[in-house]
């Protein structure tokens, strides 16, 4: 008797549970999908912002390169700061006791190696 009642309760519950799971599943999928779309919108907006910043950075880099041109540097040094190009007679060169490639600059090192290789 108890078994019969339990069986009828299960069969009574199974339909609403199935429908609830189905609805939850559908809702979950829709919710996930909408979240994806929302994230895609956010990423798209951020990408646009990034592109704007990169564009700005490129413009600033070009401006910096232009301002650092030798012509402008010399004009500022000579006209505004009163500097002069050094007279070679007044320059004292410092020689290291153990001469070798400079380690401060990679460019110097590779340049040294390249020249040395060509000479050899």
């Amino acid at each position, binding site marked *: 008797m108890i078994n019969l009642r339990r069986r009828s309760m299960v069969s009574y519950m199974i339909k609403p549970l199935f429908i609830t799971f189905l609805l939850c599943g559908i809702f979950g999928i829709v919710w996930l999908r909408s979240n994806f779309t929302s994230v895609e919108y956010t990423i798209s907006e951020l990408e646009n912002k990034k592109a704007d910043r990169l564009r700005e950075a490129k413009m600033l880099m070009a401006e910096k390169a232009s301002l650092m041109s030798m012509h402008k540097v010399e004009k500022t040094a000579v006209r505004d700061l009163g500097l002069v190009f050094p007279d070679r007679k007044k320059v004292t060169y410092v020689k290291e006791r153990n001469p070798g490639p400079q380690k401060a600059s990679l*460019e110097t090192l590779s340049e040294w190696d390249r020249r040395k290789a060509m000479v050899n």
Partner: protein
Amino acid sequence: MRKRAIILNTAIAFGFLIVIIRLADIMILNHERLNERAKMQQLKGENVQVRRGTIFDRHGREMAVNLELESLYCDPAEVASAEKSAYVLSDLTGKPSQAILTKLNSGGHFVWLDRKLEPDVARKIKETKIKGLAFVPDAKRFYPKGHLASHILGFVDIDNKGIEGVELKYHSTLSTSGRKVLLSRDASGKTLSQGVDMESRGNNLVLTIDEGLQYMVETELDRAMEKWRAAAAAAIMMDPLTGDILALANRPSFNPNSLSGSKNFERRNRAITDCYEPGSTFKIIIGTAALEEKVVSLDTPFDCSRGVVEVGRRRIHDAHKHGLLTFKEVIQKSSNVGSVMVGMKLGKERIYKYAKAFGFGEKTGIDLPGEVSGLIRPPERWSGVSIGSVPIGQEVAVTPLQVLRAYSAIANGGLLVTPHVVSRIISPDGKTVWTFTGETKRVLSQKTAETFRDILKTVTEEGGTAKSAAVSGNNVAGKTGTAQMVDPRTKRYSTEKYISSFVGFVPADNPRIAMIVVIYEPKGQIYGGVVAAPVFKKIAENALSYLEVPREDNAGDMLVVSR
């Protein structure tokens, strides 16, 4: 009741049947067509922006970069008031309103209105909210150093295609192929991110040029042009050991950022595209050939006392009568008479052989477009007077770069190097994908090269023709050249138009730079030792300071320190 139920069930079944048929139509029968239509609504094809690589000098300073601008286009069918819009756009872009109106009234659905607008102008146009106008990102090539190194860098056209210089020679390296990507979009046309990089970048170039040295060369060329009221000038500075072009400049010049204001002759890279008769700088050929072939020794005497020598029906003169000269003095004093005598001892076959060995009559192989090979005729095509002309640099056509390369062979101990302006190619992610490895060819024995280098040193010493090229504190080896130009009207050598040049290297015994200076049609003075040599001196002094090359005369005063 039962009848009603049957009718209801039949109606429902019929309804479902209609839905199923429609679904079958949508999902099976017309699937492809409808799918395409849906894609057209949901997806938008966008071009990946193609950007040229950056060009750097040897120390990583930007010489050519991209500016991110916008280009304006329109769909003429969507523009409401063409006349009013044309007036507003004309005011903002500075273009004639009639030209804009013609475009707005043209057919089709896409017309460029203006390319590469300044950011401020683009912003103002956007604020007008004229219907039918749209913008696309567009890169503009920008040369931050202006005129500097313009003949090396070259320039690009409106579509960023290389037209001259390195931009042309390395166009396929600097640019990259574009492609289209499909982006999802919503009903309002907003695109959704697909995680695709919308920019495709070409490789970067590292030049052998040094901006500092280039500036020094160009500054001094400007001064020389002004001082001698010359028609043109060219100068090249090279590392004689490696063939690295450190600086290359021509005058007149142009600004690649504003090409509309420049003329064709200003864009000519004379250093490699223009031939000239080298004059005395060509005496390197008979000098080295005579030593290498042991035809003469340093002290072999030549009687130049008459100051003239007859070759066939031609009389060749010296600028001054010299008397009895040794071979060394013939080169030092640049005696034409002595040089012709040396040439006669050598014979035309050997002169030709050495001229070819030094690379005359052939392209040097520099990686710049438009190089010419020059001209030296084979001995069988020489006339009766050629044996008097070729040894003193007449009847031959050379480029300044060929002459410099020949002198670099003396500087480096007899090796002919390959001049080049690009040393490395770097991928957009910073990896070196190519490094220059040029070929060198031995053209002289080291002994002959060293002997001739010692002779060239005397040219800038007391008694030489180029004392004004001497640099305080370091030995300079070099040679002057003064060549008459051919008058195109009379087809004879002009008595008014000359080309003055000086080519040399410094420090002579451990050369860091080799350089040629050529001044075309100077006014007032004509001699290479007076016109071109001082330009060499000034550039060399500044360059040695810049390169931190110590003076040789105070080596003992050098401060020695430990690490």
